[in-house]
């Protein structure tokens, strides 16, 4: 069973300001989900071409239908800062190509501190 690691103060994690910690030889980032107000923890490396994923954004997913119809859906994605690839914040899977997946980790807040299980 993985251990819980303290990665910083919850109040410091805001949209555009992730907490990034090195845990067991890999970087894990915790980002604020502006849709739910909650936190998401993902590995800080895009499986596409290696960018620091947590320097990207966390966004509400847009879906659509031909004919110019757009809809914000009940799904959060982490968007890579390099090429804009999206990864589901819950599963880590890229919706456009499931062969690409980033590790996601359980995250909780305790006494104002953010804990990640990794």
């Amino acid at each position, binding site marked *: 069973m993985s251990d819980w690691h303290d990665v910083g103060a919850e109040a410091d994690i805001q949209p555009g300001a992730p907490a990034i910690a090195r845990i067991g030889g890999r970087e894990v980032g915790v980002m604020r989900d502006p849709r739910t107000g909650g936190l998401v923890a993902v590995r800080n490396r895009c499986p596409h071409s290696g960018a620091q994923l947590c320097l990207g954004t966390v966004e509400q997913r847009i879906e659509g239908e031909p004919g110019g119809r*757009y809809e914000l859906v009940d799904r959060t994605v982490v968007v890579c800062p390099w090429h804009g690839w999206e990864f589901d914040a819950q599963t880590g899977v890229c919706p456009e190509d499931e062969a690409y997946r980033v590790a996601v980790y359980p995250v909780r807040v305790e006494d104002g501190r953010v804990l990640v299980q990794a």
Partner: protein
Amino acid sequence: MIDCDVHVQIAHPEEILKFIDPAEREWYRAQAYLLGLPSYPWSNPSTWFRSDLPVDPDSGMPGGDAQSIIRDALDGQGADVGILTADDALSVGLMENAYRAAALARAHNDWLREDWFPHDERFRGSILVPLQDIPAAVAEIERCAPDRRFVQVLLSGGSERPYGDPRYLPVLEAAAAHGLAVAIHSGMEGMGLAHQPSGAGAPTFYIEWHTIGSACSIMAHLMSLITHGTFRRIPDLKVLLIEGGIAWLPGMIWRHDTNWRGLRDDTPWMDEPPLETLKRHIRFATQPLEHTGGNDELLWEMLAAVGAPDILCYSSDYPHWDGDEPKWLENRLPEAWRRPIMHDNAVAFYGSRLDVPAAR
């Protein structure tokens, strides 16, 4: 062999005018160029036609009557089916006058049906439409579709907008509803209502137009149709891209594939890589298959990566100067690609309207 691009020439304009109301005929006769069709400022410096073909004595053109095409393109090239395509009249959808365009498109379709089809069971045809007037274009498809010798609706590469634009949906829907393919033939870029070719302004020379003008319009339509989600809206739509070249396809579609994930918020209905959509819905006529300077193996490898041989259908472009003679092309192709490209892919693509006559 099935030839997807056999051009009919208007050697005798009166043959078409007889299908136009007498009240309108003088207008067409009085126009500076053939029947008022927009034409090329970039003229071929030598000849538009293969110079080894017999020509009509009045017009100096080959391919101006059914017997010439039966002799040269069907019997001469060994075709089981020859799909007739307009030549100068490809620009009918770009005439400034939508009413004259509608009458001329209608007359050209009647001309094929009355003066060409009856001469040989191997003839199939392409429907011209006045694309300036979408309801009129749809009506013309509806009028022609019952004759199953028409196998496709023919649009020009030159256009007012790329064909994924929603204004064109009724035309694409009408074609698909009748089991007709939509063929987009390069050409007419910069003519009539069409935008200039190249994206960088008008080219100076014929060779420039011929090299990139015709390829760029085909690229734009291909990308537009996929990006608008046209094939999700019209699942039965099938599109043949004619004479825009093919060697550029891997580069362009890989670029499109690269971009669609990262830019998806603008087009979130794109639910698969563009290449996958292309493989199901789009075919390329082979002519002019690029010369590769001895690198044919490289070309086959590149094309295989984007779906060849399934995405390719043979075309000769008879009677033009840059046509690809079928034996020459067949010998150039990898052996396993010959049968699908020369025959089977077109049969699958066109479906029951092709109804290939029994071998002679």
